[in-house]
């Protein structure tokens, strides 16, 4: 339950060993490499090895080919450093062109089919015509056009009723009239213009079609079938071609993937003359593993140093947590990774998160169901959120047991306490209006306790960092702690009627002194750093300090009150479930259905809200007191 101890490793060798070294380097499992730019910029004479990655362009060309022709090339690396990018590019372009050419042929056939299909629809729509199409289209003095006219335009033909044409509509669908018009060669152009202005779409009947529309239909259908057959054959041939290309290109892809990783790895290489170095961090326990990885390469040196020995490089943080708190690291990392050498707040976070969630969302049935969902999610999707759901679900179930709440039914567990455990009633009676105040005060007490713990952790962290001013003078240090604890104790004693400690002998050391210390923190810190105590004059300082102090005192109140939501959610959960139970009773027989959906609805809605609210309490009320999160995460080359 801490931050893993690491070592700074520097691998160096002569340049002729670079490829050999990188081939092993890319397989390192637990190694956080340092970008060469971090080192090169600080020392004159060093060079970086990050030229343009020639693989990227070719890989995207190949990816396009894969997408276009549905090639399923495996992502298996082929380890070979014998490469010629020009040749790679040529092979891919040639394959692409050949496949495209073949596809074009299929597309031409498809276009032809679309045309014949149109003609087929046309002849189907003029089926009632009992005249051979040859006779119509071979007339010398009458020209005929077949096609479709928008329904709206048919009516407009009456504008042209004195023009020399004959219009015949054969059938109508929703938008078009399937028709023919006839005119003489003399008026052909004019009549064509009129029809075109009315959006007539001419459909050409292919030359090979003869006979009556019925006969034409057959001919067209046969031709379409023939073309479809052709396309199928061509598709099979194309498939065979793509299979063949897939085989040839998969080796090439494998090689490219491997080379790409080598190129990417060069971003970590620093050059100096004819030698190179690669720096990075690994866990202490893995140092030998790293050494073994490079065993057998002549002239390769591996230097192992403490992590902070190179001031230019900030050591990364690798969180090491136990099974319980491990999944909660995603929430901690979302806020920020702790600095190397700092403290890892994950265990504290995990426990408080589960406790608060359980208190706010206490329901035995829903809690167990949530844990089950979490289990399924964790096993099936390997989700960390699923693992969190298991833990918070179990806490929710535990508190649900204390509240005697099972899927919103507040009475079902009462016999367990009264008959089995022989208690007078349930341990906590939420629905009783008399317990509302107790719940809210309880919530505030939990909040106060958590704030005290957070201040305590802040003091511990600052002691480790040797920030003594913060330890003693800050509102998150001893000064703040004494003030806060005193106020809480005084309030508690007066509420319980055990005495009044709000008297001068107490007020001076427990309120006056801490507040003066907090007030004077900034000038004392400046004095400690050897600077002027009041750079902008005492008047300005007093003015500014007063408001800051006011803000500090106010923040203690608001932060504590913030925990009131813990009590609020206990009540709102019970309230929402009361609505569900009432609805169940109202609908009668289908009550069970309302019960299921109501429970699911409350679980999703409230579960989500409570989850977010607890996260808010963790981040704002606690993290802000003891946690910076300004470290960098440990990332291996494979991440």
């Amino acid at each position, binding site marked *: 339950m801490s931050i893993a101890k690491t070592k700074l490793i520097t691998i160096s060798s002569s340049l002729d060993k670079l490829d050999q070294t990188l081939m092993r380097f890319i397989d390192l499992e637990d190694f956080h490499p340092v970008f060469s730019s971090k080192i090169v910029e600080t020392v004159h004479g060093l060079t970086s090895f990050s030229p343009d990655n020639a693989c990227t362009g070719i890989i995207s060309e190949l990816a396009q080919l894969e997408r276009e022709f549905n090639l399923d090339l495996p992502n298996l690396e082929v380890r070979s450093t014998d490469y010629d990018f020009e040749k790679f590019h040529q092979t891919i372009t040639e394959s692409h062109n050949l496949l495209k050419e073949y596809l074009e042929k299929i597309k031409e056939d498809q276009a032809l089919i679309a045309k014949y299909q149109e003609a087929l629809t046309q002849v189907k729509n003029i089926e009632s015509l009992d005249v051979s199409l040859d006779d119509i289209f071979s007339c010398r003095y009458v020209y005929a056009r077949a096609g479709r006219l928008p329904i709206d*335009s048919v009516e*407009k033909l009456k*504008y042209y009723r004195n023009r020399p044409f004959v219009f015949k509509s054969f059938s109508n669908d929703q938008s078009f009239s399937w028709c023919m018009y006839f005119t003489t060669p003399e008026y052909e152009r004019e009549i064509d*213009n009129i029809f*075109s202005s*009315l959006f007539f*779409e001419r459909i050409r009947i292919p030359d090979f079609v003869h006979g009556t529309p019925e006969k034409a239909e057959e001919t067209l259908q046969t031709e379409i079938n023939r073309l479809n057959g052709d396309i199928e054959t061509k598709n099979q041939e194309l498939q065979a071609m793509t299979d063949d290309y897939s085989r040839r290109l998969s080796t090439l892809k494998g090689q490219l993937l491997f080379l790409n990783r080598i190129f990417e790895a060069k971003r970590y290489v620093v050059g100096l003359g004819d030698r190179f170095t690669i720096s990075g961090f690994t866990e202490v326990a893995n140092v030998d593993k790293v050494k073994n990885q490079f065993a057998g390469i002549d002239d390769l040196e591996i230097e192992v140093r403490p992590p902070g020995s190179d001031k230019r490089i900030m050591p990364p943080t690798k969180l090491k947590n136990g099974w319980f708190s491990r999944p909660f690291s995603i929430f901690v990392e979302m806020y920020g990774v702790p600095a190397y050498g700092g403290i890892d707040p994950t265990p504290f976070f995990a426990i408080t998160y589960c406790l608060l969630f359980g208190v706010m969302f206490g329901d035995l049935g829903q809690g167990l169901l949530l844990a089950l969902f979490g289990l399924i999610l964790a096993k099936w999707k390997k989700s960390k959120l699923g693992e969190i759901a298991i833990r918070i679900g179990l806490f929710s179930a535990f508190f649900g047991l204390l509240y005697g709440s099972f899927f919103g039914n507040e009475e079902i567990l009462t016999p367990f306490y009264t008959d089995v455990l022989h208690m007078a009633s349930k341990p906590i009676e939420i629905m009783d209006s008399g317990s509302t105040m107790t719940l809210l005060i309880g919530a505030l007490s939990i909040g106060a306790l958590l704030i005290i713990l957070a201040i305590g952790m802040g003091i511990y962290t600052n002691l480790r960092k040797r920030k003594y001013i913060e330890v003693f003078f800050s509102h998150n240090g001893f000064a703040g702690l004494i003030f806060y604890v005193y106020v809480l104790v005084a309030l508690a004693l007066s509420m319980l009627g055990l005495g009044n400690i709000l008297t001068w002998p107490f007020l001076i050391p427990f309120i006056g002194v801490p507040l003066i210390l907090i007030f004077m923190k900034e000038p004392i810190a400046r004095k400690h750093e050897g600077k002027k105590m009041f750079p902008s004059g005492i008047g300005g300082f007093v003015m500014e300090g007063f408001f800051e102090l006011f803000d500090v005192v106010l923040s203690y109140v608001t932060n504590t009150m913030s925990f009131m939501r813990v009590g609020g959610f206990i009540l709102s959960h019970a309230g929402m479930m009361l609505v569900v139970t009432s609805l169940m009773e109202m609908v009668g027989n289908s009550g069970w259905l309302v019960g299921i959906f109501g429970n699911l609805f409350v679980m999703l809605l409230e579960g989500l809200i409570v989850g977010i609210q607890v996260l808010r309490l963790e981040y704002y009320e606690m993290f802000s007191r003891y946690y910076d999160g300004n470290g960098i995460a440990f990332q291996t080359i494979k991440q």
Partner: protein
Amino acid sequence: MIAFAGNAIVAKAKSIYGKRLMASDYEAMIKMKTVPEVAAFLRNHPKYAEILRDISVDSIHRGQLEALIKKNAFNQTLRLIKFVQIKDSDFFRLNLVQREIDIILEILRSMISESFDTAISDVPYYMKQNSSFDLFQASSSKSIDELANNLQKTPYFTVLKPYMAVANHDIDYVQIEHDLELYYYDLVFQRIQENYHGKLRKELETIYLTRIELENIIKIYRLKKFYHADFGTIKNTLIHKYSRIEEKKLDEIIALPNPDSILIYLDKSEFQRFSDDKEYIYVEYYVEKINYNLAKRYMYFSGSVPKVYTAFLILSEIETENLTNIIEGIRYQLTDVEIKKMLIY
């Protein structure tokens, strides 16, 4: 029952609005190179899928596509009007007046260009049940006098009367268009005043005032950019009577030498944003486009029938105009940047 009918209009309008073209749709369309591409895109869009279902995308004529888009908008408005109660139905029927004016202008354009077939092909025959004049007669008019006579029993006659007795190529189209638009807006404000009071009246008036402002701006841009019109011509086409931008400023905008600088001017002027007292932004002028939020606001938040209906109507008109601008822009090979400047969304 009345409240029920009102709710039906609001629900129907909002459901049709839900299928509108989004900014991303416009962005996609302005990048297209051909009209068939736009037709294919719209055919796959839920709002236009039904009306464009049977078209052949590759051979569709620009005019046919535009006619179908207009028909779609008209059908959708008709569906809403069905539910209107008698009391203020004349307000709801304003849309028909606008469509009739469009038809008259279309007929006049075809007269000027002597292409009478265009008038016939563009006349929306589906409107014949709803129109206040005989569409067949009007669209077969061969001169402005004939047209005016065919419209004698309508208020349009009075508007056309001063411009009669001229040869087709001498028809003062720009002035007639202006007068018809002014007639329309006079009618709009008159009907709003007759039917509504207080805050609702003010809000309805604001919707139209904003619409007029946007129309004026786009008109200046189009006339300068594509017709290279002079100061006087542009000034005469604008609706001054209901302009929110004062005369002097409007003159300054018209006088800008470069049409592209209009939006730059507005972007930097006090008109950049037009918002209400609650700081809700109605119109924003940017250098590359215009954002229009007023009608959208009512579509989202209002439950008042006249407001939702008016907002629906205006958004529907704007969408149709946007599509016309895109289709014509592509047809005349304008760049996507140029087309975008004429779009409002």
